[in-house]
């Protein structure tokens, strides 16, 4: 069970939230070609370790926000608002410490 700190309502169970996937890069120009569009639409970093991702507190305030989470330990390192720059997170995360397994 993830306990996600909604920046508006405080910490709640994951069942109250909807997942929005990785925070994508910026939308490409229309004339940059299929490869750039495929990369934007479909390709993902899918990191083993820290990921910047979107969550929506759908059964609470209904607001979207961003979370920095470790995909190995599921520890949430930071929460920041939609459209804000991601905070700097200490990268000495646990997934390195336990060999990434």
């Amino acid at each position, binding site marked *: *069970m*993830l306990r996600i700190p909604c920046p508006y309502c405080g910490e709640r*169970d994951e069942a109250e939230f909807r997942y929005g*996937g990785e925070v994508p890069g910026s939308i490409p120009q229309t004339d940059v070609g299929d490869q750039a569009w495929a990369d934007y639409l479909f390709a993902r970093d899918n990191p083993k370790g820290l990921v910047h*991702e979107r969550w929506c507190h759908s059964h609470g305030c209904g607001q979207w926000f961003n979370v920095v989470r470790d*995909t190995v330990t599921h520890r949430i390192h930071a929460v920041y608002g939609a459209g804000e720059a991601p905070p700097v997170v200490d990268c000495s995360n646990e997934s390195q410490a336990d060999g990434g397994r």
Partner: protein
Amino acid sequence: MRGYSFPALVGRALRGHRGWPKAWRSAEPERSYDVIVIGAGGHGLATAYYLAKNHGITNVAVLEKGWLGGGNTGRNTQVTRSNYFWPQSAAFFERSLKLYENLSRELNFNVMLSQRGILTLAHSHHEMEALRRWTNAIRINGIDSEVMTPSEIGKLVPLLNLDARFPVHGGFIQRRGGISRHDAVAWGYARAANALGVSIVQQCEVTGFDIADGRVAGVTTSRGSIAAEKVCICVAGHTSVLAAKAGFRVPITSMALQAMVSEPIKPCLDTVVLSPAIHAYVSQSDRGELVLGGGADGYNSYAQRGGIPLLEENLAALIELFPAFSRLRLMRQWAGIVDITPDTTPIMGLTPVKNLYLSGGWGTGGYKAIPAGGETMAHTVAHDAPHPLIADFGLDRFESGALIDEGAASGVAH
């Protein structure tokens, strides 16, 4: 390799089962190979086996960071079926089921295939219409599939509660579908590949690629550098991690898919029952345990454990369908990391790096594809061109837009 047979079994039994030779030999890494396959799961071992058997390439190493068959091959729920919707998927997965039907003989290793049928349920009139269309598509693809009425389902699965919270409106069955023993598939391919000269190296994690002028020349591992003319990635949930080491991104999201088994009970369920709408499926293993599963946890994860909320959701749905199971205790619960693609069709074939090949994106259904996956990837590696059966499964489909949106891939709704 000494063949397994009834006389051999009787002979060994009379001598107290002493002196059975090891099924396969664990090798130390050498300096170079013709082909390196990364990942000693079903797909990696099958690819190595067919490289040796069909293409005569025997100087092959299968590198495994953990132990043989210890990833998703040992964590899935053993379902084999070919009831897919689109013609490309149907042709590929039907080839796989046909290979499964002869696999025990092919490998001289009993994979315990039990074609007990896989029954998919519908819980509303509209869902039933969708299942009828799915059934027709399967039949047009030349694969067996039958619509069943609630009373026929009640006779086939007497324990099923047809008047559940979401009543059963009907369903369809692929009678050639079923289950097999997943460890046996890994061990059988390992043994057969090893007998043809393939080296299996465990505890050897690939940490990077040796790439020059856009062409792969080998890998770096936790046990030193190894040169190879060709490298094939078959690593289930860690496809993105290895692709990043080779310098390209893939359209894959890794998630935790959990499964669980109950305490063993007497035979009570002789088919696989699956409900897409309520997100649950169940079969009974030969040991008597009920093998239960459902959808994947709804967020990126590389932790090989599942979340409790989804476990509760799966079990609540299942107990509503099978009230008799409500008093059983769970013995084990676990998760595997599955790599899910946007269209739930695997990604197989060439990569942006020359001589580096990829078999990944198997999502929640790679087990059933092991024989055909190995056969087609071996062809692809040997000829440096995709096998016709997987020509449409390449990475380039995300640029061309020719996605194969296979909702039937997982069996349960995403």
